[in-house]
C-alpha cells in the first residue's frame, strides 16, 4: 500500500506542472495571433511578387538567367532547415530535423555533398551533435524572424548557386496550415521553377493571368528585370517560410501544452482517487483494531 504522504506529494508536483503547461498554452495562444497577423501583412507583397514574376517568366527563356537553369548534374546541394529556438512544441522541431537528416543520408548515398543552413537553436544543436557543421546558422530569431535573416540566406544561396559551388537549394519548414495543424513542406527554391510559379498562381486567382496581358512592356530589358526580380523573389519566399514557421511553432506549442494540461488533469484525478481510497483503508483498519482491542478487554 503506498504511503499517504507520498501520494500527496505527487499530486502537488503534478498540479504545479499543470500550472506551468497551462500558462505556456495561454502564452503561445496569444503569440499565435501576433504571428498570424504578421503573415497577413506580408502576404500582399508576396502575392504581387509572384504575380510579377509570372508576367516576366512567361516572356523569357530559362537560359536567360543562371538562377532559372536546371542543372542535370547535381554535385552539391544546400538544405535550409527552419525550426525553432525552443522545445516543448510537440513534434514541431523533430519532424523537420528528421526529414532533413533522411534527405542528407539519401543524397549522400547518391554521391551528392550536402551543406546545411540551420535556422533555430534546435537545428544548430541537432547538426552539431551529428558532426555536421552548418555553413550559416541563425539563433534567437525563430519567434521574430527578420528580413535581414532571410536576405542573408538568400544572398548566400544566390552567390553560391551562381558560382556553381551549389547546384540545388532546398528549404524544409513547417507550414502553419491552420491554428491547430502544421504541414511539413520541402521546397526546391533554386533553381527557380517557373512552371511551378505559373501553376501556383493558377489556383489562387485566375485574375492574375488576366492582369498580365500580352503586350507587357519591360524597362529595362526583360532579362535585366529578371536578374533583379529573381533574388527578390527568393528573399520573399524565404522570409515567408520563416514567418510561416514562427506561426506554426506557436500553434504547435499551444496544442502540445494543451494536451499536457489535459494529461495532468487526468493524472491528478486518478491520484486523488487513490489517495482517498488509501485514506479510507487506513481509517477502516484503525476502527477494526479499536473494536478488536475493546472486545479483547471485555472478555
Amino acid at each position, binding site marked *: 500500500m503506498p504511503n499517504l504522504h507520498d501520494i500527496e506529494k505527487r499530486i502537488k508536483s503534478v498540479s504545479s506542472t499543470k500550472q506551468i503547461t497551462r500558462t505556456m498554452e495561454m502564452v503561445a495562444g496569444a503569440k499565435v495571433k501576433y504571428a498570424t497577423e504578421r503573415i497577413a501583412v506580408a502576404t500582399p507583397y508576396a502575392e504581387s511578387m509572384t504575380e510579377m514574376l509570372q508576367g516576366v517568366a512567361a516572356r523569357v527563356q530559362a537560359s536567360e538567367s543562371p538562377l532559372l537553369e536546371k542543372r542535370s548534374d547535381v554535385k552539391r546541394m544546400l538544405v535550409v532547415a527552419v525550426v525553432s529556438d525552443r522545445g516543448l512544441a510537440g513534434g514541431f522541431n523533430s519532424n523537420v530535423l528528421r526529414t532533413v537528416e533522411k534527405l542528407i543520408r539519401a543524397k549522400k548515398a547518391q554521391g551528392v555533398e550536402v551543406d546545411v543552413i540551420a535556422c533555430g537553436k534546435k537545428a544548430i544543436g541537432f547538426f552539431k551533435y551529428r558532426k555536421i557543421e552548418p555553413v550559416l546558422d541563425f539563433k534567437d530569431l525563430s519567434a521574430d524572424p527578420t528580413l535581414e535573416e532571410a536576405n542573408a540566406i538568400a544572398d548566400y544561396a544566390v552567390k553560391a548557386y551562381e558560382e556553381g559551388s551549389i547546384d540545388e537549394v532546398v528549404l524544409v519548414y513547417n507550414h502553419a496550415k491552420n491554428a491547430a495543424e502544421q504541414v511539413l513542406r520541402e521546397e526546391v527554391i533554386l533553381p527557380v521553377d517557373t512552371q511551378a510559379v505559373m501553376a501556383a498562381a493558377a489556383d489562387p486567382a485566375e485574375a492574375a493571368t488576366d492582369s498580365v496581358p500580352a503586350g507587357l512592356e519591360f524597362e*529595362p530589358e526583360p532579362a535585366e528585370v529578371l536578374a533583379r526580380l529573381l533574388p527578390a523573389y527568393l528573399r520573399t519566399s524565404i522570409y515567408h517560410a520563416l514567418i510561416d514557421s514562427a506561426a506554426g511553432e506557436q500553434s504547435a506549442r499551444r496544442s502540445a501544452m494543451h494536451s499536457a494540461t489535459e494529461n495532468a488533469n487526468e493524472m491528478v484525478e486518478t491520484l486523488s482517487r487513490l489517495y482517498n481510497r488509501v485514506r479510507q483503508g487506513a481509517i477502516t483498519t484503525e476502527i477494526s483494531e479499536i473494536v478488536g482491542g475493546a472486545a479483547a478487554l471485555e472478555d
Partner: protein
Amino acid sequence: MAKFTCDIATPVAKCYTGEVHYVSVPGTEGEMGFLSGHVPLVSTLSDGVVRIQEDEGGSFKEFAVEGGYVQVSGTKVIILADKAEQR
C-alpha cells in the same frame, strides 16, 4: 479623368492602397508617370521618391522607397519595395 488603384507594399507592411489619379515613380531608366489606362509595364526602380496624386490638381503624397519594382496593368499600379516610408 478616370482613377485607378495604387498599392505600395513592402514585406513587412502594406504602406498605401487607394484610388489615385496620378503616380510617378523613380524608374532605373528615369522618372515615369502613370495615368489611368497606361500600357502594361514592369520595371525596376532605383531608390527615390514615389509621388501620388489622389485628385486631379490636388496635393501630392510622397513615399521614399528603396529597392523597388513596379507593375502597371490597365487598372492597377503595384509598387513593391524593400523599404518604403511616407514623408
